[in-house]
Structures are given as C-alpha cells and as structure tokens.
C-alpha cells in the first residue's frame, strides 16, 4: 500500500504505541481487501462496547482522536437505576456491561480522547449530517446504510476495532464502498404499482426493506417505483432493515439516492437481475415480523433507530389526552439531545403524562425492559423492523412480536389489544 509520510509516522510509532497499533491494524486490513492508499476520515462513529483495555491499547500516547468522532447508543446501568429503577444482573448478547463502574470508567476514558458522548445510533439527527462523498467509519449498520443510500456519503463495512482505529488516526483504507466502482447496484427490485407505494405507512416501508435485505444478502441493491419525495424518516424505515435480514449497506432508491437519479446511474456497467415486489412478498415479510400467538401484549417499543423530532411530534399527537394501559410498558428510544428538544417543544411532557417511558441514549429495541425478568410475558408490539427482528433473536425466540404502523402501536399501548 502506498502510504503518505504522515501515515508512515503513525505506523512507525512517532505518535506513540496506540497510533502505531491502530495504523498497523488499518494497513493490514486494507491490504487484505485490495486498498492501494489510505484516505482521510470525515466522521467516525464508535461503539462503546469496544473493551476498555482495547481502547487504551489502540490510543496509547494520543491526547485526542484525529477524526470528528461520536458514540453509538449505550447501555447505561446507572441511568437505568436512577431514572427507571431498573438494576439488571446480566444483558443478552455481549453488547454491554451491567457494571456501573466499568461503564463509567470506559465513558470517561472515551471522553478524555475528545470522543463526543452523543449516545445515539442516529448522529445525523443531532447535527452530524453527512454530505455526498464524505468518508465515514460507522459502527452501526442503520447509520451506515442510510449514509450511503440517502446522504450519498461513503461508508464501508466497519467493525468496532477498525472504526476506533480510524478515529484515532483520522485515516482509513480506500476499499469497498469507499470506491465508486464498488457502489453500483447488483440487484434491482421493482415495486409493483398495485401496492400503491404513494400511500405506504412507515411499517410498509420497513416490511419492504426487510424482504429486500433477505434476498440481497451482501449485495448492493436498487429500488424502482417508490415516490421521489421520500422523507428522511421514510427512507430510514426502508433501508435500516436491510443489514439485519441481509448484509446489504448500499441501497439506491432511484430518484432519491444522490448517485441514482436514474436506474442506469444506479447500476453503472452492471447488468443486474430485476425482481418484482408484489403483495405476496410484502405479506411474507409481515408474517416474519408477526410471531405472536395471540393479540395480547405487554410492551410496545417505538424508536429503533432513535426517533427524529418529527416522529416524536407524531407520537405525541397520537397519545395526547390518552393513557397507556397500566399493564403495558411503552418504551420510546430517543437520543438525549432530541429528548431535550422534545421537552422544549412540550412533546416529552405529553408522552410522559400519557404514561410512556422515554429511554434516553439506549438501543431502542434492546432497552432494559426487554431484559427485565417477568416483564415480557406475552408479546411486544413495534413499528420497527429492527426492533421486531432483534427482540425475537436476542431472546432466543422467547419474545414474540407484533409489527405494524405507529397508529396501530399506539392503539395497542392504550387498549393492550393488537388489532388483527
């Protein structure tokens, strides 16, 4: 690989052992995947699950990270104890720690490196907005696919260690989706006009994305036949399921994606197969997300990914003057900055008065209520595909899910009955 003088200094240990370890990881990693050079990182977004010892090893000798760096959603055991009265003995899936001291020590270490404590899966909702061509090293697949597909930024298939090393050095190998030739669609989906995509609910967008991801696997896709005026909220409901049912992180929505004004622009020189999406596939997708045996439920989860202020406005409008059923937990995933805005706007007060629980900074679908023994006896309802998918799997199939749009979820939270 061709390295700049500064790259060589990082690699030679001029900036200390942490920068050397980080740069060595990135160079070896890049060489495995055909990178010829390194490029500057515009924004790194990190998981707080990277172990404390690893954080120290990969940053040893650096006063601060070199890239603009934010943090993903967290499991914050102290916040849960103080604000929700929840103390957990363990968490599923190796995603975090229930030990307050381990958590606090790691967060203070990260802050000392000038890594911003944003604690959200959706940094683009709180001011970190990617622009076309930007190089992003994101942990978190929903932010990755949205950045590629909606903002036209360049985000590759990252991991906790490579994105951390990219933050430390401000560099990443030029490979994968950072290169234009690897971004073209390899599979095209054509949404049938009979489905009336003009009137899709957010749950319809999610079900469509869930189906497409499952077929695509790791391939880039293009979608034809959707309205060209997709909102940010609709676009992310559409694309964020794709990396969970498959491993797709590049979706060209023709007419929406900056580099896909037309289908031919989306496919480049490829000659991909086109698959028609009809009522049948939408129905199968809904069935996979609806595993509950009855229409009873214990929990409603909204906000995975974290809600935008527009979505909170909508939720507050639907819940205003109503009460969440006493036997239902309505958990809402939200970032702290958005929560503050929701308070200023009065939305948070409406939601809390109605009995909703706003869970700051946590992964929406895997909130502490999911791990609370005995809390979930029947089923959880959600308008989030990622929510339904992960709640089913992280519980080993124990958690049953009900999936539908936000209006249906709110009615279910109030009545404790899902409308079949």
């Amino acid at each position: 690989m061709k390295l700049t003088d500064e790259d060589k200094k990082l690699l030679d240990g001029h900036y200390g052992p942490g920068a050397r370890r980080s740069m060595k990881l990135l160079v070896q990693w890049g060489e495995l995947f055909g990178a010829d050079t390194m490029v500057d990182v515009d924004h790194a977004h990190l998981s707080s699950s990277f172990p404390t010892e690893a954080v120290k090893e990969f940053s040893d000798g650096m006063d601060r990270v070199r890239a603009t760096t934010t943090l993903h959603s967290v499991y914050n055991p102290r916040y849960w104890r103080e604000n929700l009265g929840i103390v957990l003995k363990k968490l599923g899936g190796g995603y975090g720690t229930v030990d307050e001291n381990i958590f606090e020590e790691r967060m203070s270490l990260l802050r000392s490196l000038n890594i911003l404590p944003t604690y959200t899966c959706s940094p683009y909702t709180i001011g970190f907005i990617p622009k076309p061509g930007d190089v992003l090293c994101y942990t978190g697949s929903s932010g990755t696919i949205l950045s590629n597909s909606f903002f036209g930024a360049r985000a590759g298939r990252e991991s906790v260690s490579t994105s951390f090393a990219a933050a430390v050095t401000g560099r990443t190998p030029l490979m994968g989706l950072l290169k234009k030739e690897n971004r073209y669609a390899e599979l095209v989906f054509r949404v049938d006009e009979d489905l009336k995509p003009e009137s899709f609910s957010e749950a319809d967008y999610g079900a469509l994305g869930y189906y497409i991801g499952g077929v695509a696997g790791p391939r880039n896709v293009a979608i034809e036949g959707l309205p060209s005026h997709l909102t940010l909220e609709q676009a992310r409901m559409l694309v964020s399921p794709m990396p969970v049912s498959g491993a797709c992180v590049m979706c060209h929505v023709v007419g929406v994606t900056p580099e896909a004004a037309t289908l031919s622009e989306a496919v480049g020189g490829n000659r991909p197969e086109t698959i028609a999406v009809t009522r049948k596939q939408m129905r199968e997708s809904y069935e996979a997300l609806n595993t509950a045996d009855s229409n009873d439920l214990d929990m409603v989860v909204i906000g995975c990914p974290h809600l935008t202020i527009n979505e909170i406005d909508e939720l507050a409008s639907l819940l205003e003057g109503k009460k969440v059923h006493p036997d239902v937990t309505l958990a809402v995933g939200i970032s702290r900055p958005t929560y503050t805005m929701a308070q200023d706007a009065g939305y948070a007060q409406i939601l809390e008065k109605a009995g909703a629980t706003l869970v700051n900074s946590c992964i929406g679908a895997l909130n502490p209520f999911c791990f609370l023994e005995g809390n979930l006896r029947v089923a959880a309802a959600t308008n989030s595909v990622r929510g339904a998918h992960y709640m089913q799997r992280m519980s080993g199939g124990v958690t049953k899910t009900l999936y539908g749009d936000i209006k249906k979820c709110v009615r279910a939270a109030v009545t404790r009955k899902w409308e079949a």
Partner: protein
Amino acid sequence: MILKGRTVNFGKAEGEAIVTSVPFSFLGEIEPSTGKVPSPSHELYGQSLAGKIFVCPTGKGSSGGPGIAYVTKQHGNMPAAMIVGEVEPVLAAAILTADIPAVDKLDQNPLEVIETGDYVKVDADQGTVEVIKKSAR
C-alpha cells in the same frame, strides 16, 4: 499434506483442528470466559475453540465481533490460529484485533481436506498449512 495460501495475520501455531462448515461470528458464537460455542443452534455447540486451529468458511454478522475476540484473547481462550476459506472485513478485523495467526485462500478447500481432530501446523508468515490426518496419527 502441505497447503499454500495467503497471510491474513502473521505468526505460527499448531494444534488440533476444529472445523465448522458455516460462516462464523465472534459475537454470539464464542463465550469469552470459556472459549466454548454457546448457541444451541450452532453445529459446534458446547465445544471449545480455545487453543485449537479453528477452520471456517468465512465470517458474518455483527460489527461487534472484534471486541469479543479481543476479550476472548484476554481470557486466553482464542483459537491458537485460524484457517479461513476467505475472510470478509469483520472477521479479518477480529483476527487482527485479537492478533492471532491466520491464513485464507488456500490452494485446496480447507473444509474438504481438514477434519476436526486432525493435527495442523500453521505458518502464517509463509502462508502455509501442514495437515497431519488424525487417521495417520
């Protein structure tokens, strides 16, 4: 039998092979404190990868894998080396983050020529793998 491939990460190790035919993720498919595969649905359920030469086709799944691999190494429970059909970015990152010797893209499919229980010597510096069949041991 000597196989030749590509260096994924440098180093040498030898030991008993353990082989899986399905793509592997360190997140959820290894328990750091024991080195065992914890998921009942996995074909290696309950078996330990610690200190073994672990053979798998490729990686899959969550970007959290390299963190788990790092912790597993701290516990002393990582495989001694890995032989992979072909690495993808997250599995490669896990191998490099835990810093264990590894090779991929061998001149013969390792899943066909290596069986669980064979004795395997990995020289990742040279990109070579020597397989001593358990039947010959």
